[in-house]
């Protein structure tokens, strides 16, 4: 019999209970999906690139400088497959937590003799294990390919790089899972929770882009006619901060990003904090509010203000870009431009306020409807 009597603090206790059986039964299909996705999209592309270089060597027209781009893109050209993989693990983590909220299945789980923390930790462990195994299988395939072509690849790629690639990306995926699961414990709607998690993950970068547009508009004249190095450096600083606080970007070699050691330390610290918050959040989760867009009142306020602000900003940015073309701000001379820049800023600010207020009321109505 697999039943465990004890309440010991060891991790093994999560593997021998009915709750593990229940969660694993659903999660196992994601193992095949994630592994298949990685092997098909990432490994296949990786192998193709190696084959491409090998063919060039075979034909005798190989030149390292000519093929430098191919080497560089061995990992970075997989951005689309990485994005798809990230979407898949957000979906996976959302389903693992949120599926029980659909059709009130949480009633059965909550009535079973498990502690709330046991339930969420089991879900978390299974999601992480399945993702780690899938990614590790894919990485082993990369290692084998590297080993078989070491002489060809070692001038551009080292084992050290590969292990860094593996560890940073693995931690990023664990971070995404943890973050998504935390959001799911705060949002009573499964699909919306996944979308919110995705948006929040890239929110600092998205906001920095939107702010850049605002920045460009406000300082339009200085940037067009004057020396704008100073302004560019301020913007770059904002962008760097956005990348620092977005661990999801750590897997790419952005120059604004941190060094390897710092990335690992930040990711581990953030994951630990998120796990703690996720457990606390699930422990106090009022199940009767499942179905609400936001389970807590504070979440309602954050959503209403956040969505209104971002939508207003986005609308204002779009309008400003259009007005820039309509008024021909890049063509007209310096004497006229000030007036039209003022118009553009005025109408954009009006748009920001109008759309923001409208979005606030719409969001408020939707949140209220989800509670009725």
């Amino acid at each position, binding site marked *: *019999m*697999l*039943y465990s*009597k004890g309440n010991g603090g060891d991790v093994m206790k999560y593997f*021998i*209970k*009915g*709750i593990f*059986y*229940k969660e694993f*039964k*659903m999660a196992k299909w994601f193992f095949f999906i994630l592994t298949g996705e990685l092997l098909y999209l990432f490994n296949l592309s990786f192998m193709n690139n190696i084959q491409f270089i090998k063919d060039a060597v075979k034909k005798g027209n190989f030149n390292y400088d000519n093929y430098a781009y191919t080497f560089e893109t061995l990992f970075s050209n997989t951005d689309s497959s990485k994005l798809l993989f990230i979407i898949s693990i957000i979906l996976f983590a959302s389903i693992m937590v949120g599926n029980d909220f659909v*059709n*009130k*299945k*949480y*009633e*059965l789980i*909550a*009535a*079973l*003799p*498990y*502690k*709330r923390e*046991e339930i969420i930790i089991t879900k978390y462990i299974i999601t992480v294990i399945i993702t780690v195994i899938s990614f590790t299988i894919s990485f082993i395939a990369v290692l084998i390919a590297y080993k078989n072509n070491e002489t060809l690849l070692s001038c551009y790629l080292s084992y050290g790089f590969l292990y860094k690639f593996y560890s940073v990306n693995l931690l990023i995926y664990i971070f995404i899972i943890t973050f998504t699961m935390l959001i799911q414990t705060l949002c009573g709607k499964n699909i919306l929770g996944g979308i919110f998690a995705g948006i929040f993950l890239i929110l600092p970068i998205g906001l920095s882009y939107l702010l850049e547009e605002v920045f460009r508009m406000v300082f339009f004249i200085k940037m067009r006619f004057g020396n704008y190095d100073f302004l560019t450096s301020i913007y770059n600083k904002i962008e760097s901060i956005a990348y620092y606080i977005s661990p999801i970007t750590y897997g790419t070699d952005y120059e604004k990003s941190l060094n390897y050691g710092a990335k690992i330390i930040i990711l581990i610290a953030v994951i630990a904090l998120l796990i703690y918050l996720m457990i606390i959040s699930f*422990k*106090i989760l*009022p*199940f*009767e509010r499942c179905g609400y867009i936001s389970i807590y009142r504070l979440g309602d306020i954050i959503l209403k203000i956040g969505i209104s602000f971002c939508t207003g900003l986005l609308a204002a940015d779009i309008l400003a870009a259009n007005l820039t073309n309509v008024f021909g701000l890049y063509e007209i001379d310096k004497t006229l431009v000030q007036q039209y820049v003022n118009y553009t800023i005025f109408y954009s600010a009006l748009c920001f306020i109008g759309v923001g207020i409208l979005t606030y009321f719409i969001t408020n109505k939707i949140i209220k409807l989800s*509670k*009725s």
Partner: protein
Amino acid sequence: MTLMKVKKMMIRGDNLISVINANKSYPYKKALSSVNLEVEEGSIFGLIGPNGAGKTTLIKCILDIYKLDSGDIKIGGENIRNNPEAKAQIGYVADENKYFTTFNIDEMIKLYKMTYKNFDMDRFNELNRIFKLPDDRSIGRLSKGMKMRLSLMLNLSIRPKILIMDEPTSGLDPIARKNLIRILLDEVAERKTTIFISSHNLGELERICDTVAIMNEGEIKYRDSLENMKTSMKKVQIAFKEEPKIKIEEMKEFRSVEKIGRVYTVLTKEFNQQLISKLEKEGMVFYQEINLTLEDIFMCCIQKGTGVM
């Protein structure tokens, strides 16, 4: 086994379920308002009330599915909140069984086996001979009645100390309902299981419950043993030769009055010689005590609104 025999065999113990000053609100509604309730070990407790009275909320709070805003719920003296040991003693049969539709029956059994150390496969098979579930079918393909049977079988097989059931007979055919009542009575008699049932089927509750609580608008309006209810309350039919001068409906002695022609059916706690004389002065020509049902008490309690009985 007859009902009387079962009731005689029951030896009541201490309070197994204690609800102490429970309060629970939803955003637009107060669901539980200062609910106090105690259920004795080895008893069958019935919870009745109109739709939206707060019965299901109370059950979900007892099971720690929902958290109380204030108050306590204790099972065998221990707080139920996040307490797996206390929860392991409780079987829960919900009105709508939210099982995992991708599971089949065998997998549900496996889940229960791995979760409850007392799960008894022999008991499950014994119950299956009565309830006759189809072999290893997916839960998603089971009818409402079949799901209810499965839920009953699983929760009876864990050998619970407390069995909480929310509308357990909904979806069951008359034969299955009869079998269920027999099984429940056997459980109480043989294992001293405490049964907590919420149902709209007052006739069935009256047959099996020792104690009944009537709930309305989040409050327990009335709670007593059926025996006490029937001893203290009388249902009497009285007939008058002519229309009485006083308004019978307004007499403070009567909790409920129904009138058909000059015949009144009243519920009263004070049907004594003094009242009979008073009514005879008003022209009463006939009176007869008739069988008081749980439905009468329920209707009286809910219609009166105050719950003071």
